[in-house]
């Protein structure tokens, strides 16, 4: 309910100002970033054309746009590869992270034994592991997938573990009194309590999966495997094809934005009914 509906008969000065501010904010939320985008593109274009900057130093927005269209046949499969890598890595991170988190909360022994190794896996830079993986794993795609998975899985594991433990103690007591089974406790109490934490982890992991995929493509794709957008980007830089380089960069960003938007949407849809993070205050 908007404040203007709230105070229908008399809208005092303060409420009027607030209503107007809300209206302006709603429009500005979209128009301001769009305006910044248009202005930056314009500034970029003017800078390049007025100063005659050579295209191998900085191509203008128009050649970059052209490059996206002309090189589409090359960029699109690369984008598909990167997307597939990212999404698969994220999927494996979610299943692995959640499964391990459940194992950790069900058994203290499992947590004590394995949690330190999950941390070690996380703190070791993926760039350092990638060349090794490339040696031991034949398929470049699988090696890259492993890299991306390692990066993405920790926030899911760590957040979900915290979430599963965060259920109200009184509710736990209540479940004990009603003789709940282990499974019921997990299904009806721990899992829903963990959901907001898990979704927070998912949003971080989505971004990290893409970063992991791109890093892996850089390191592994250097061997000429032609793996994904990062390889395309690297190759374009070797050839001084800066239009294509920027095109690949833009597509990577778009992919990142897409993943963030999707994970945020999932989070919003799952929590909007009850969780504070997804509620708009009616005030």
């Amino acid at each position, binding site marked *: 309910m908007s404040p203007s509906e709230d105070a229908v008969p008399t809208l005092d000065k303060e409420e009027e100002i607030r209503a107007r501010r809300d209206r302006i904010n709603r429009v500005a939320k979209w128009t301001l970033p769009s305006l910044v985008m248009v202005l930056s593109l314009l500034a970029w274009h003017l800078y390049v054309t007025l100063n005659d900057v050579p295209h191998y130093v900085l191509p203008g927005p128009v050649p970059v746009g052209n490059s996206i269209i002309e090189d589409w046949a090359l960029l699109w499969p690369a984008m598909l590869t990167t997307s597939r890598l990212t999404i698969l890595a994220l999927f494996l991170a979610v299943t692995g992270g959640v499964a391990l988190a459940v194992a950790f909360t069900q058994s203290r022994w499992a947590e004590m034994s394995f949690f330190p190794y999950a941390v070690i896996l996380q703190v070791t830079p993926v760039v350092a592991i990638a060349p090794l993986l490339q040696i031991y794993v034949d398929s470049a795609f699988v090696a890259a997938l492993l890299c991306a998975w390692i990066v993405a899985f920790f926030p899911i594991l760590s957040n979900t573990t915290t979430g599963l433990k965060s259920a109200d103690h009184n509710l736990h007591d209540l479940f*004990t009194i009603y*003789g709940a089974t282990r499974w019921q406790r997990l299904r009806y109490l721990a899992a829903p309590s963990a959901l907001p934490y898990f979704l927070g982890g998912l949003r971080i992991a989505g971004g990290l999966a893409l970063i992991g995929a791109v890093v892996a493509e850089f390191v592994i794709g250097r061997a000429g495997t032609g793996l994904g957008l990062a390889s395309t980007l690297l190759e374009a830089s070797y050839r001084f094809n800066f239009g294509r380089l920027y095109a690949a960069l833009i597509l990577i960003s778009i992919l990142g934005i897409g993943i963030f938007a999707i994970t945020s949407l999932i989070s919003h849809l799952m929590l909007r*009914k009850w969780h504070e993070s997804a509620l708009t205050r009616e005030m």
Partner: protein
Amino acid sequence: MTARHGRKPILTMYRIEKTFGGETVALKDLNLTVNGGDFLSLLGPSGCGKSTALRLIAGLIHPTSGRLEWSGERGVGDLGIVFQEPTLMPWLTVSQNVWLPYRLRGTSFAEARHDIESALELVGLSEFSDAHPRELSGGMKMRVSIARAMVTRPRLILLDEPFAALDEITRFKLNNDLLEMKAALGCTVIFVTHSVFESVFLSDRVIVMAARPGRVISELGIDTPYPRHADFRTSNEYASHTRDVSNALGEAMGVAA
């Protein structure tokens, strides 16, 4: 005075002691008989072990020594509990929250629907069955919590300072309603409180406890017959009972200090 006329004991506690971590004595030599149909209040300052006693009765913890004996059959749905906070699950609607005791027994929502609806009706929240807890006020959340505790029509309901966090107006209203609900259900109630006025208004037996170590100091009977209404609060009888209970509590505090 202990056994009200014609009531049979359902729970007897013999010489119960509970020590936490080998050194903190929470309860010492607690003897208590709970009769079917009692409205029993455990009254005392903080640290007197009244919540510990409640958790022992609920089976959440076990006594260090002593015995706790139930008479008669005890099923899963025979005990309901209400905590100081409403402890609702925010992701479920009001009626789904009330469904919980049945759900954990494997009873489907459809099968439990009738009981859920009548429990919500008893607490006056029928209209809110599809709302989420966040949409309710503090008092309404507490009503949902009470509905959940009595949906299975348990023989015994435990309430652990359920109204302590509510404002006085809401508390009075809930006190009245609680008595009506108890009458409708015909169950036994054990009510933990630190309010003299609340214990006198609600119960027919007030157990006064002292702290460090937690123990029972005295027991007072409030023989005013039910139903008790709001006018009971202003009666001389009420005043004299509160005076007696206050004195007993003062004594308990004096012993403790």
